């Protein structure tokens, strides 16, 4: 009896390994179009960036880029299966093929881009790590943090930046490292640590859900560069191009003044050749991507341009409240870093 079990277990293992080894030769675009929906990986709900409402619908700044790709590839931004996994397994999950792309405030770093079998496509948000403290503590600068207990989430680049910053400043600190952001916040709100560190966008997002957000302040210093953007698997350049140019289409649309409200009008009446090329009224920019000629039109019509998405989910009118004007995330024409290569 025992013998039989062992044989069966061995056989099951072997079958499992074979199954996972095959079916890798079709292009991601082909696989997604055959399947009829896209698998997009987001994080555990995070106000403003990837939020789950009571009906099970995902929305948010990073979700919008998933929706944009689905609109470009499938012509329907709702044809997405969202995968919400913890940050430690995010890259493994993507590399294994469980998701087709990842869009979840993930920092582009050399190690991640070169050693994990992944490709970062482009930057959708220029962020930086900062510190959140209670106003009551009287702290006004990160230079006053010597000896502080710092709450930090594991499985992120923030842990390393934190050590680097304190080392370079010659200060000491005590990391309190959590796996679950909810336990971290509970600890921070009850005073279990003096500071909460994360990307500033993440701090603003979490603060918006605090019982009394006005009692907390983000210190002015930014201690790291955190370029956030969508990630794809390495080895399928066409798919990487689709994700990258979907983002560029949203940026270019904003630059050219195209938004979800006027896109039909612009496609029909605009004389600007770049607008016409972008919206598929002339030229053949879509062929290299393997998409239909209205791919960019679909993105802007169904999801919106870069600025619309920003203001809708994380702008000053939202609880997350990250001002865009004057920040790195303004368009390059307004002094920011949001810039797209030309559509020609």
């Amino acid at each position, binding site marked *: 009896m025992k*013998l039989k079990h*062992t*044989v069966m277990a*061995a*056989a099951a*293992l*072997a079958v499992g*390994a074979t199954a*996972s*080894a095959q079916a*890798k030769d079709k292009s991601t675009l082909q696989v997604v179009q055959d399947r009829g929906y896209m698998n997009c990986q987001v994080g555990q709900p995070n106000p403003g960036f990837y939020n789950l409402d009571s009906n099970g619908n995902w929305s948010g700044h990073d979700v919008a880029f998933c929706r944009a790709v689905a609109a470009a590839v499938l012509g329907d931004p709702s044809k997405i299966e969202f995968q919400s996994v913890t*940050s*430690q397994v995010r*890259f*493994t999950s993507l*590399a294994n093929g469980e998701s087709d792309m990842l869009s979840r405030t993930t920092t582009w770093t050399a*190690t*991640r881009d070169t*050693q*994990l*079998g992944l490709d970062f496509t482009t930057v959708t948000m220029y962020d930086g790590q900062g510190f959140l403290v209670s106003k009551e503590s009287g702290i006004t600068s990160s230079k006053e943090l*010597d*000896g*502080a*207990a710092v709450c930090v989430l*594991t*499985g*992120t680049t923030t*842990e*390393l930046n*934190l*050590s*680097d910053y*304190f*080392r370079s400043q010659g200060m000491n*600190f*005590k*990391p*309190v*490292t*959590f*796996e*679950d952001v909810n*336990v*971290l916040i*509970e*600890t921070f709100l*009850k*005073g*279990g640590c*003096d500071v909460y560190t994360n990307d500033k966008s993440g701090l603003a997002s979490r603060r918006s859900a605090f019982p009394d957000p006005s009692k907390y302040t983000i210190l002015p210093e930014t201690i790291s560069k955190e370029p956030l953007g969508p990630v794809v*698997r*390495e*080895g399928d350049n066409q798919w990487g191009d689709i994700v990258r140019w979907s983002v560029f289409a949203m940026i270019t649309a904003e630059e050219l003044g195209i938004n979800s409200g006027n896109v039909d009008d612009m496609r029909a009446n605009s004389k600007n050749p770049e607008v016409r090329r972008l919206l598929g009224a002339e030229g053949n920019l879509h062929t290299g991507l393997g998409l239909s000629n209205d791919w960019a039109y679909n993105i802007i019509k169904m999801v919106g341009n870069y600025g619309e998405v920003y203001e809708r989910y994380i702008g000053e009118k939202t609880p997350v409240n990250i001002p865009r004007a004057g920040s790195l995330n303004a368009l390059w024409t307004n002094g920011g870093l949001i810039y797209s290569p030309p559509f020609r």
Partner: protein
Amino acid sequence: MNSPVRAGNTAHGPERSRFSRMASDPKIRGLVAQAIVGTLIVLAGYYLVSQTIYNMEKRGLTTGFDFLSSTAGFSIGFHLIDYQPTDTFGRVFLVGVVNTLFVSVIAIIFATLFGFIMGIARLSHNWLIARLAASYVEIVRNTPLLLQIFVWYLGVFTLLPPPKQAFELVFGVFVLNNRGFYATAAVPGELFWITGIAIIAGLALTFMFRRAARAQREATGDAPSYAWKALAVLVAAPAAVFVLTGAPLTWEVPTLKGFNYQGGWAVPPPFLALLIALTVYTSAFIAEIVRAGIQSVGKGQTEAALSLGLPRSRTLKLVVIPQAMRAIIPPLISQYLNIVKNSSLAVAIAYPDLVGLWMQTSLNQAGRAIEIVATTMLFYMVVSLSISGLLNIYNRRVQLQER
């Protein structure tokens, strides 16, 4: 009974070939079956490993253990061995191992003590004590451990006062606040090792006195007291040595400085929450094991001991518990293994154990998932097998010697 081969012969006649005789021999058949299964398992294992390596190479994932000697770069909130962010990933692994073993060993000690007390209390003739112990066991045993860890952490330790309003206990020798538990540390001076040697010598001498006293009791039936001698070598002699070498010990009192208390000996709240949760949870299981063990000893044993005039406490100590141990040890081993493995839930509340440091932070920074998961599994296996090995040796000693 006939041997299997002979049985085959009588059934099919003597002219049957050697091969068919071997085929009908259950012993040989068993060996062949095992060889086939063994080969299949090895092949399956080989296939899995080579396929994994192939897949990883195909996906451009770097593999190997070279990352162990590269700089980790991150800080660790609680470490018992020296650690700097400039140390290597190999060092991080060690820190994690030590932190895991630290909390596990202390939890094992407390859970055993507490479990024995509760187990005996459940059998108490005092109705209230027995009921209290029973409800303790039932409540603790029937709720998930992770939940209990959160209750201790979020419900108790984070609700303690902040550093500036900390509880100072015993005139500030101990301090308790929401950042941890601080105790005044004794810092040994240069000549303290001489006192250390005196203490060890005292322990050795006491042990010898005890053996001599036992030998004498077995020979003559008279048990001489060696308490005074033991006191002299254990306390008086080391104390004298300590004073003669100039009292080489200074006290480091935890004091409020900046954000928090500094100095002394400190453990963070997650450690306390984890330790208490593991202790409480496992002690409930141990209590049941102890109760079952004691009840497995025949009532006649107690009655016989009482009729010999042994008082109740000595009956328990000399007659019941030694026999109960035979039933207690095997399930106790698995509870100890559970403590070590359950300590990995530390990751939920920020105690930097092996899983937190290695499987979370290091895995994220170095990205070597397979290597890191494999080493973590190996560690837990080695620890578990060592514990069960040690306790099995002890178990063999206390088992009934059949002659």
